[in-house]
């Protein structure tokens, strides 16, 4: 074990810790292999790793659009084909190296992260290659092989579904709304609502409704059976046909008018006389009369109320010699009923509403 250095965490391996950056391939550890390997093997491994790194770097730095063909992209044919060929070559080289490394280093269990990553990638590539081979066996896919010096055979497929996915996601490309072919989730109306403001839609609806109403009204007026307009001549307004009858009718009307005017005049005079009488009375007499009038009104109302709640009590009881006592009992019962506070009645703050000593009851419910 190494001596722990100050400020550094203690590690059991001699591997230097490196920080992980997403999207960046970790640099392989060169020179930290076990001492059991010979220098030649080490050199070979370095060469292989370097080639792998180059291939992977090429793959990672290549723009993803070149790997996936889209109809909307416009590129020159020759440039794209060259790029694709180079890319293919790099990938194939990387695969081969990875496969060789996997077979040669299968026994050595290195702790380097890069080796494990390469191995995983190599395995995935093999799987994808197998899938491609299976697809190439399907009809409709044209596969062309070309050989170049210094390179292994390449496979070029023109199948648009063939994707060289090194776990790469397709980069989304913006397609304008007018060119989109997909249907909206809620149909065209949702798209339409999104385009037109709500108040505009409501305005158009109102206009449509008013036009429809006007049309229906016009149709109805046109279709209604010209309501057989009554001939004005059917109602005779000829005068002096029967003079005596007409004069008698007029007399009756005039008499009624005169009586009506007389009654109105009498009512006005009666009211003025009453006002004058009250004004001329002494104050004590006036108060007494007012109290008596209020008492009569209250009794009348209580009688009506009692008749509503107890219709039997309102009937005249010949056997009962004291109707006032019965009425008083009814009123007492009603007052007790009113004393019961209603559930949640915050206005029942006391018995002031039941105070009958005043001229006029305070509570409107009694009045």
């Amino acid at each position, binding site marked *: 074990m190494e001596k722990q250095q100050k400020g550094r965490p203690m590690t059991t391996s001699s591997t230097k810790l490196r920080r992980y950056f997403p999207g960046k391939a970790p640099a392989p550890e060169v020179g930290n292999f076990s001492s059991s390997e010979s220098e030649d093997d080490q050199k070979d491994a370095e060469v292989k790793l370097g080639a792998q790194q180059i291939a992977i770097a090429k793959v990672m730095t290549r723009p993803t659009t070149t790997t996936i063909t889209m109809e909307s992209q416009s590129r020159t044919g020759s440039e794209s084909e060259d790029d694709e060929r180079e890319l293919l070559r790099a990938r194939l080289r990387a695969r081969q190296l990875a496969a060789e490394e996997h077979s040669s280093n299968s026994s050595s269990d290195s702790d380097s992260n890069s080796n494990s990553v390469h191995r995983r990638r190599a395995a995935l590539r093999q799987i994808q290659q197998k899938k491609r081979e299976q697809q190439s066996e399907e009809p409709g896919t044209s596969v062309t092989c070309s050989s170049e010096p210094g390179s292994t055979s390449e496979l070029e497929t023109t199948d648009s579904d063939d994707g060289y996915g090194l776990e790469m996601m397709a980069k989304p490309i913006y397609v304008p709304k007018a060119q989109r072919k997909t249907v909206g989730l809620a149909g065209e109306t949702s798209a339409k609502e999104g385009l037109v403001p709500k108040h505009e839609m409501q305005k158009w609806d109102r206009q449509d409704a008013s036009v429809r109403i006007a049309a229906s009204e016009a149709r109805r007026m046109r279709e209604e059976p010209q309501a057989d307009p*009554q001939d*004005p001549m059917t109602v005779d307004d000829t005068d002096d046909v029967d003079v005596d009858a007409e004069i008698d009718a007029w007399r009756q*009307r005039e008499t009624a008018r005169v009586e009506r005017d007389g009654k109105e005049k009498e009512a006005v005079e009666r009211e003025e006389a009453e006002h004058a009488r009250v004004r001329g009375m002494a104050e004590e007499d006036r108060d007494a009369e007012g109290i008596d009038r209020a008492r009569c009104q209250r009794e009348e109302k209580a009688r009506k109320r009692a008749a509503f709640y107890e219709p039997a009590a309102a009937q005249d009881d010949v056997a009962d010699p004291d109707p006032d006592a019965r009425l008083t009992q009814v009123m007492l019962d009603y007052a007790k009923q009113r004393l019961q506070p209603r559930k949640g009645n915050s206005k029942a703050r006391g018995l002031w509403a039941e105070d009958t000593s005043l001229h006029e009851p305070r509570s409107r419910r009694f009045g």
Partner: protein
Amino acid sequence: MDKAVDLTCIGGCFGPSRKPTEFLCLTLKLLQLQPDRQMLDVLVDQKDFKYLRALALLYFRLTQPSVEIYQKLEPLYADYRKLRSKNMTGTYEIVHIDEFVDSLLRENKVCFITLPGITKRMALEDAGQLAPRISPLDDESESDSTDN
């Protein structure tokens, strides 16, 4: 004026679509023309054309002050001639001129028109602007008694 002479009925609006009668249209026309007081008096006092008279009475009620309305319209209580009135349903009925005058003096709405406010007769009598009304019936009874 020719069309007013040719009137055959009085009324406001009728039918489901509230179509105005000719009487109402001519009332509007009079309001636009605004005839002077002399012309109006002539139209009210003439007896030849009863529908023209009714038209003038309505215009008088709409435009003149309360005292003059009572002074001009109350003597027409003696006119018992018939008028053809078109109601809301479009049918015709007979109305007498004295009834028409009475409705003009007492009611708020006549011929689909809300009439302007008018002072009560009793208030004008108390104010001394009007004399108490003498009915034509009273006149007849007095004349009978004097004859006797």
